[in-house]
């Protein structure tokens, strides 16, 4: 029963589904009250406890808009494949909220998923991969001497590396961000993984992978190393990482791995049937465009440059077959929308794409 002393506790008289309607459609004051009521309603608390999942993007944004600061949180599950080529791994080794396990791959994966979630929520108000609170799953210790990490459509999969050329693939935070961003791209523009659209898909993953690391470290654009996988190569390899966004083609030059084949300008675009039409090769061109835009704008790269790239990825004009020039046009359009046609942002983005020969 309600007492007369807390007339605003709407949960006493209104069922949760009506409170939800008010929270969505009421005046600002009513919305705030409805949301507060929903949050303290014992039924809702039971529901939250039993599902133990993150709230959806819409609900999270509604709460934030109503001044009720309850940010969504990630829902992480890490599994161990035990050296077998199976994903998901057979054993759950760490769930959301669990203490560190002491297994460095498990804990790096857990922390990396959290750092990626944090960038997308704090910088772009995106709630997980699908912006609807999608659980973040990962499998570590996949296969033996496995030199790779990939996104399988539902989860991230990490090998331990061979210890000869590569360290464990959880070691580089930007690689974790890179893989999760593939999931986001799949949910948004759906860039086809072949030729220029595929290289753009790869570049988007490098951009946000790097931003995850910069965001966690609190680095400005000029402080960042702009390397992907800087920790991944062992000391036996002549190289500093898998790719350099700042200077494509300079990340490694090693007797076993060969020389980094990435171009940084359209004049050097590589036409090949390998690597899905050069998706990891020609991504150097849009990677450098982002780097140049971020450096020109200064400050934190995830703010203005990252915001423009993020909105461009969500823009309906970015489609499955969008090429470099098409994406460049979208980023310039987005910069105009967000900052105005004569803005420094439009100039920086336009000059960046021009400098790499895309426009």
């Amino acid at each position: 029963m309600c007492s007369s002393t807390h007339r605003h506790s709407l949960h006493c008289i209104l069922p949760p589904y009506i409170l939800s309607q008010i929270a969505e459609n009421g005046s600002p004051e009513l919305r705030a009250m409805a949301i507060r009521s929903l949050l303290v309603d014992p039924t809702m608390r039971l529901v939250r406890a039993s599902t133990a999942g993150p709230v959806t993007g819409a609900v999270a944004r509604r709460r934030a808009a109503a001044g009720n600061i309850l940010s969504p949180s990630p829902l992480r599950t890490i599994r161990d494949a035990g050296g077998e080529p199976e994903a998901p791994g057979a054993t759950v080794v760490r769930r959301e909220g669990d203490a560190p396990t002491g297994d460095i791959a498990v804990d790096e994966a857990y922390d990396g998923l959290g750092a990626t979630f944090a960038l997308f929520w704090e910088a772009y108000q995106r709630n997980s991969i699908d912006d609807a609170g999608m659980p973040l799953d990962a499998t570590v210790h996949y296969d033996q001497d496995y030199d790779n990490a990939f996104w399988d459509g539902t989860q991230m999969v990490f090998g331990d590396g061979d210890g000869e050329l590569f360290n464990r693939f959880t070691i580089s935070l930007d690689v974790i961000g890179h893989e999760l961003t593939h999931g986001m791209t799949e949910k948004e523009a759906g860039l086809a993984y072949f030729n220029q659209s595929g290289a753009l898909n790869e570049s988007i993953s490098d951009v946000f992978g790097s931003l995850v690391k910069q965001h966690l470290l609190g680095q400005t654009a000029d402080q960042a190393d702009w390397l992907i996988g800087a920790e991944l190569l062992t000391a036996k390899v002549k190289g500093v990482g898998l790719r350099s966004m700042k200077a494509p083609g300079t990340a490694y030059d090693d007797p076993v791995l060969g020389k980094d084949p990435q171009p940084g300008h359209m004049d050097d675009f590589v036409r090949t049937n390998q690597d899905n039409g050069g998706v990891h090769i020609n991504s150097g061109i849009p990677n450098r465009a982002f780097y140049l835009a971020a450096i020109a704008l200064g400050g934190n790269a995830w703010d203005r440059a990252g915001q423009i790239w993020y909105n461009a990825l969500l823009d309906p004009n970015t489609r499955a077959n969008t090429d470099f020039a098409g994406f460049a046009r979208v980023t310039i359009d987005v910069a105009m929308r967000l900052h105005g046609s004569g803005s420094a942002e439009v100039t920086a983005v336009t000059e960046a794409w021009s400098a790499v020969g895309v426009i």
Partner: protein
Amino acid sequence: MQAGKACDETVTGEARMRIEGGLAHFPGLAKDQTVSFDDLATPERQEITSLADQTNFFSCVASNDTARPDARTYTVGLTIDGRSRELRLAEPIQDPAMAKLVSVVRRLSKQHASIR
């Protein structure tokens, strides 16, 4: 392959592996690797032939799967007692026995290629 051949130490052949895709493209690693059964220990040879049996490697229907971002595509070739076939398989490989076969061939062909 004949049933029971997996345990025969006299089995002859070779295993081949080509890997495409992955988190990065390394020109130095983008080449075929071949290991002769003559260079394998008996248990290694037996494991390959046993897995080839389990997966019906020489008669199974080829998959048309395409690799997801950063996943690898494997071209696995086996020649065992005169029978030969190549299969192209994209990660994640759903059949556990086939995934195991790919894993074993990948590791053995790399070990015997003496990369570094």
